[in-house]
């Protein structure tokens, strides 16, 4: 009986696996933000090819630590590696790391002003003043000046931010540092910062909880989270001077605006992008791949997977609330993939 079952299993495997990698298993770890689409990709790709992926969404920081320690086949991060981190990995693992942008996300400013509803507009200057604690009331002349149609209340502003270290915070504070010199000097950018004002919520749901519960609050969350939960969000004045609502197209436009001056290693912060349609607080999320890998089968498998993910795989992005890569970036990705090689 057992023998027959095994035979049957073997036959089924033969039918369903189209490649010779049936037993191959790739381990990865890192960012939580792209976890939903990565799981989708891994699942679909597993059904197509039989290659198994084991991805632990332990956070970008954890992913980078594991890549540095060499305990995974690939990592994933919402922030690109610093020069120091790249050097450390090269020393420890004897290979450089390639950054592959996979999808994009945006960070939106959600708020709770029941009498105002949708349609709040913000400029980078006002945003920075709010988060620095300089503007404390909703009917401050700086806010009313750009929101002429809205009847803003005479209420205090409550700022909500993430209390846990996160890629979302990294994108948001990165943007703030770009548009406000004061922010860059006093607060800076990173996955956790020393906030001048406000309450901290754990995770997107924590921040959304504070916003939902507190009239007069404003905070930043991932676009996907705001859309799924029906939170109102502000349109933001971009570099070209237009007020842009955060939409998937506006995010893709931001990436496209950066293609011309994309650095060769694809480590780029696309906040405050050029172009009149670009939403200014958006960012890539990256796969971190060793350039030289010691397992021939894994090299082939990983290369094929990435090629598939950034081309065919992108079609799943919008349904899962991610902004797909613009074609120009996909091209750059495909060139990068060719650099991954087998080396003992």
């Amino acid at each position: 009986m057992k023998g027959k079952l095994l035979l049957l299993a073997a036959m089924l495997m033969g039918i369903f696996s189209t490649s010779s990698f049936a037993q191959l298993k790739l381990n990865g770890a890192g960012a939580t933000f792209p976890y939903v689409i990565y799981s989708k990709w891994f699942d679909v790709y597993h059904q197509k090819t039989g290659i198994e992926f084991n991805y632990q969404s332990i956070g970008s920081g954890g992913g980078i630590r594991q890549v540095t320690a060499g305990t995974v086949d690939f990592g994933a991060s919402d922030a690109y590696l610093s020069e120091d981190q790249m050097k450390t990995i090269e020393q420890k693992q004897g290979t450089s790391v390639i950054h592959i942008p996979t999808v994009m996300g945006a960070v939106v400013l959600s708020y709770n002003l029941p009498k105002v509803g949708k349609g709040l507009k913000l400029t980078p200057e006002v945003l920075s003043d709010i988060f620095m604690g300089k503007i404390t009331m909703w009917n401050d002349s700086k806010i009313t000046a750009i929101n002429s149609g809205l009847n803003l209340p005479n209420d205090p502003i409550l700022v909500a931010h993430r209390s846990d270290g996160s890629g979302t915070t990294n994108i948001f504070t990165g943007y703030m540092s770009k548009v406000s010199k004061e922010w860059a000097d006093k607060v800076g950018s990173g996955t956790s910062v020393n906030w001048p004002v406000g309450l901290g919520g754990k995770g997107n749901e924590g921040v959304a909880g504070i916003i939902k519960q507190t009239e007069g609050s404003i905070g930043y969350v991932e676009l996907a989270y705001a859309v799924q939960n029906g939170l109102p969000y502000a349109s933001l004045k971009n570099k070209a001077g237009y007020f842009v609502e955060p939409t998937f197209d506006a995010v893709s436009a931001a990436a496209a605006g950066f293609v011309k001056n994309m650095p060769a290693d694809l480590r780029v912060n696309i906040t405050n992008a050029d172009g009149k349609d670009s939403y200014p607080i958006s960012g890539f999320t990256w796969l971190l791949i060793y350039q030289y890998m010691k397992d021939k089968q894994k090299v082939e498998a990983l290369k094929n997977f990435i090629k598939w993910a950034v081309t065919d795989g992108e079609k799943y992005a919008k349904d899962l609330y991610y902004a797909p890569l613009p074609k120009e970036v996909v091209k750059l990705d495909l060139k990068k993939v060719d650099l991954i090689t087998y080396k003992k």
Partner: protein
Amino acid sequence: MSDSEKVKENFNIEQQAKKPAASFLNLKSLFSKNPGDLVFENITRFFAFIVFLLVFIMAFEMIKASMPSIKQFGLKFITGTEWDPVDEIYGALPYIWGTLFSSLLALIVSIPLSLSVAIFLSEFAPKWLEKPISLLVEMLAAIPSIVYGLFGIFVLVPLLRTTVEPFLGKELGFLPFFKGAPYGFGMMAAAIILTVMILPIITSISRDVMRSIPDSQREASYALGATKWETIKVVLSGSKSGILGAILLGFGRAVGETMAVTMVIGNRADISLSLFNPSHTMASVIANEFTEAISDLYISSLIEIALILFIITIILNAIARLIVWGVTKKYSGALN
């Protein structure tokens, strides 16, 4: 077997029973004992020693991992009030303050509450009422902390923000405890959630301890003409050490509680006496920031916070033990 032999045998058994932990492996008794007993004895001894080893390894690993931060900041780590991952400046005082203050507040509120419940259950309640109340109290302890957190966000925080805090601010605003804007999220919400979380622990242990006081003592007290209240005082003084132990277990739970607290406390590293003020705790900051901490000094600082939490817990427990021993000694002395 003659009588003298029997006495000798008994004496041997007594000797063995007196010094079971003289050596790690009790080889001497290898031949005089049932081999099954011996195996069992050594297995249990092995696991008992593992506890020592575990605590030792934990302490050692934490000290080792927090060395970079200890070297960099020294004592300033404990006295510093700034926590800035961007500039790599780490001071843990606001977190230490938040942990101790919130736990202490929870304790102050929950001690009278839980002792009242325990006294009622053990001394007054009829059987048909006692069973369901005990069950409900114990069920409170089984609720996962994330559920308490959600209850905090969706029920408690709005209530505090719209009703309780504005009222307290208006009526008692001259006290340092009720100053500032009523956010709802903050020390008060955390302390209330913690109170509810430690209430079942203190209640059920205190009740069991009081129940274990033999009825003969109560009867003796009545026989001497004592009132019900005086009799309860006798019961309470007999269960002092047990109740103290219960309180300290509750305190331990409050100090270590992470999820529910971080969801309602506002997560701002401030030191303030005001219950309205957002605060932060040691356990929360570790849970919040560890996953995304990349630089070595950052990780090391978070581990040093864990080390401080570990040390605080040990000190608290040591104090508790000393008090319990003191009380027990005094009490047993009085009995003799």
